[in-house]
């Protein structure tokens, strides 16, 4: 986690060009967000896009803690879920009393909720850091989830709290009945939240967060209260998580107990970490990728959560920088014009890697067919190729793929690693000269 947050340029280089580039990125993001529903206009993809927008806010909020301030929380869904519930109740009051409040303002309720509960729970938990903080966060999420089951009046018990989002004040004729209007609401809030969170990383406070993460003792010696920095980061993170929760409630027209569970907290942790905690864009990458995987993999296989978990473990073990870290690692190589030299080693690694993945996936799928879906049929339809899990042939094929993959990777692995590190060394030498 030693890389700096995106765009951490030394003070002297604040000329017009980088400023324009930054503005360009944000304008580009806005244009993409406006155009996306034109490209993917089907109902299913619109649903995915809405979910992505929500998860981007949530993951970025989470990364304010994990990536930027170095606080591992197992219970961030508390602020997401409570934001959702308070937004749902606000909507019920608005539609019941016919208050002149537009739907677009309802996420503010989530923001305030997240902030208030962030202040309450943050005051208790940010006094500690590291493992103790992680444990307190776990305790708090279990506490709130257990309380939510008891307080059925507010949390609606098993059914949750559902409402009708079209009954708020309609501005410019937008009633938010069609999903596309909800998408634009989410996209607008997503863009504003992203920009706000990025701006926070560029303030002196954002810089102090990094200092508290990297070296709390030294930050304290410079004269900052590490506990104070952690507390403010925690409250702000709660605020944005609350916005995400409110948007989720608006999107589904329901706030349910699963939103504030330990599982939901786990999902955002996985998302953020797979995307990469060391880079501002990491959680965005993670949120987009995992949302896509969740919806597309769950159509293909019932064991999709297993793949999800294995992917997380592999990232923790081998790519601690996450996907964003993997991408930014190639930045210096691209600047040195050496990117094409990596094609050879990468291609050589790709073939055994694919064999390994295919072998593992085949074994998992065949097992799944024999156990969970035994009652249905033992035939695994692999495109046009039907494989019968009850016979030996597909198992042998899977084992052969697996063994071949492992064997060739072991054989060629050192050579590939050497080639890659040679290219990186050359890029570093060129940058130095």
């Amino acid at each position: 986690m030693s890389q700096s947050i995106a765009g951490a340029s030394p003070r002297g280089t604040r000329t017009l060009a980088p400023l324009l580039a930054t503005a360009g990125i944000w304008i580009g993001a806005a244009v993409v967000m406006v155009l996306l529903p034109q490209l993917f206009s089907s109902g299913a993809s619109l649903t995915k896009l809405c979910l992505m927008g929500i998860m981007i806010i949530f993951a970025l909020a989470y990364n304010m803690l994990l990536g930027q301030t170095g606080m591992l929380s197992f219970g961030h869904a508390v602020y997401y879920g409570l934001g959702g519930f308070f937004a749902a109740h606000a909507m019920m009051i608005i539609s019941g009393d016919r208050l002149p409040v537009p739907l677009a303002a309802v996420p503010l309720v989530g923001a305030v909720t997240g902030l208030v509960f962030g202040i309450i729970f943050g005051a208790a938990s940010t006094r500690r850091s590291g493992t103790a903080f992680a444990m307190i966060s776990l305790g708090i999420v279990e506490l709130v989830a257990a309380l939510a089951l008891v307080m059925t009046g507010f949390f609606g018990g098993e059914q949750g709290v559902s409402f009708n989002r079209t009954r708020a004040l309609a501005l410019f004729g937008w009633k938010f009945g069609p999903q596309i209007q909800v998408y634009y609401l989410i996209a607008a809030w997503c863009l504003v939240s992203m920009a706000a969170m990025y701006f926070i990383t560029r303030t002196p406070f954002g810089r102090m967060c990094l200092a508290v993460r990297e070296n709390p003792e030294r930050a304290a010696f410079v004269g900052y209260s590490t506990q104070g920095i952690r507390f403010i980061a925690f409250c702000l993170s709660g605020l944005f998580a609350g916005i995400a929760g409110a948007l989720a409630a608006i999107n589904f027209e329901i706030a349910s107990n699963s939103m504030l569970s330990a599982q939901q907290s786990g999902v955002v942790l996985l998302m953020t970490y797979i995307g990469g905690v060391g880079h501002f864009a990491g959680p965005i990458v993670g949120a987009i990728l995992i949302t896509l995987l969740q919806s597309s993999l769950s159509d293909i296989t019932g064991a999709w959560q297993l793949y999800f978990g294995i992917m997380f473990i592999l990232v923790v073990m081998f790519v601690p920088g996450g996907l964003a870290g993997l991408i930014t690692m190639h930045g210096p190589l691209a600047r040195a014009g050496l990117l094409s030299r990596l094609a050879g080693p990468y291609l050589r690694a790709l073939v055994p890697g694919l064999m390994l993945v295919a072998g593992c996936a085949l074994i998992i799928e065949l097992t799944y067919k024999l156990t969970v879906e035994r009652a249905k049929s033992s035939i695994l339809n692999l495109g046009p190729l039907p494989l019968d899990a009850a016979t030996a042939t597909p198992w042998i094929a899977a084992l052969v793929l697996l063994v071949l993959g492992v064997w060739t990777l072991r054989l060629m692995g050192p050579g590939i690693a050497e080639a890659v590190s040679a290219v990186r060394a050359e890029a570093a030498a060129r940058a130095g000269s």
Partner: protein
Amino acid sequence: MLELVVFSTLNGLQYGVLLFLLASGLTLIFSMMGVLNFAHASFYMLGAYLGYQVTRTVGYWPGLIVAPLAVGLLGAAVERFCLRLVHRHGHVAELLFTFGLAFVIEEVVVVLWGRVPLDYRVPAILDFPAFVLWDTTYPAYKLFMLVISVAIFIGLLLLLTRTRVGLIIQASLTHPHMVAMLGHNVPRIFMMVFGAGAALAGLAGAIAGPALVTQPSMAALLGPILFVVVVFGGLGSLSGAFIASLIIGLVQTFAIAIDVSLNDIVRPLGLSLPAPAVLGDLWNATVAQLGPVIPYLLLVLMLVFRPTGLMGTRET
């Protein structure tokens, strides 16, 4: 009333010592490696599932031996081939790794055994009421669980305090470098302690499987309680973990039996407080309903006000 107290105490003690079987391994692993093993409850679940599988094919008693051994080997392998690799990236990465492992183990269990609870039965030889008190029977299997857990506890205590192996383990907890200087292979000791802890968890699963429900969510249900126990007792303190296990066990079983709400307690004092509408449910909920909340409340309060836990010597 007496009946309730006696049976709740028995059940609480039995649940408490079962918790200690898990907590002892978890806290030993934490003292050695400084990592809280999120997957510890998953090892417990694997113990139950493997025990069931062996029971189906061979019998209950072999399952009671094979399941812990297999889980122990798996635990040792996890330490040797994965955790040691992740260690380079620091404690947060280790915590994240075990978190991911817990996630994967749950999904593997779903893929292998399905989502439906298993029909893991108490062996016929132990399927009789041990005694009858005030017309309520106490199953022999629960007594058996109590006896095994206590036996393991005493064995562990003797092993750690009275044998050479125990002394080396104790020494590597506090002075790993000195132990290494004296010629002991400290990483191997770590691996074996991790494996032994996992095996204890597996054993707990194999004996608890028939009494509780063997299902894929059993790890997620017990895991947080386990953390409450080790943090409440003081991380790294075995005696603290023992006391905390009993406290949590008793608190949880007694809470289930108490059918009184806060409102009921206050009313005789003439303090019929009209609670605000939102908190009304909380006000009228019985202690039994609030039972699941209590351990986490204890955890949060303990961490905020006494971070070392009951008997811990160092802050978490």
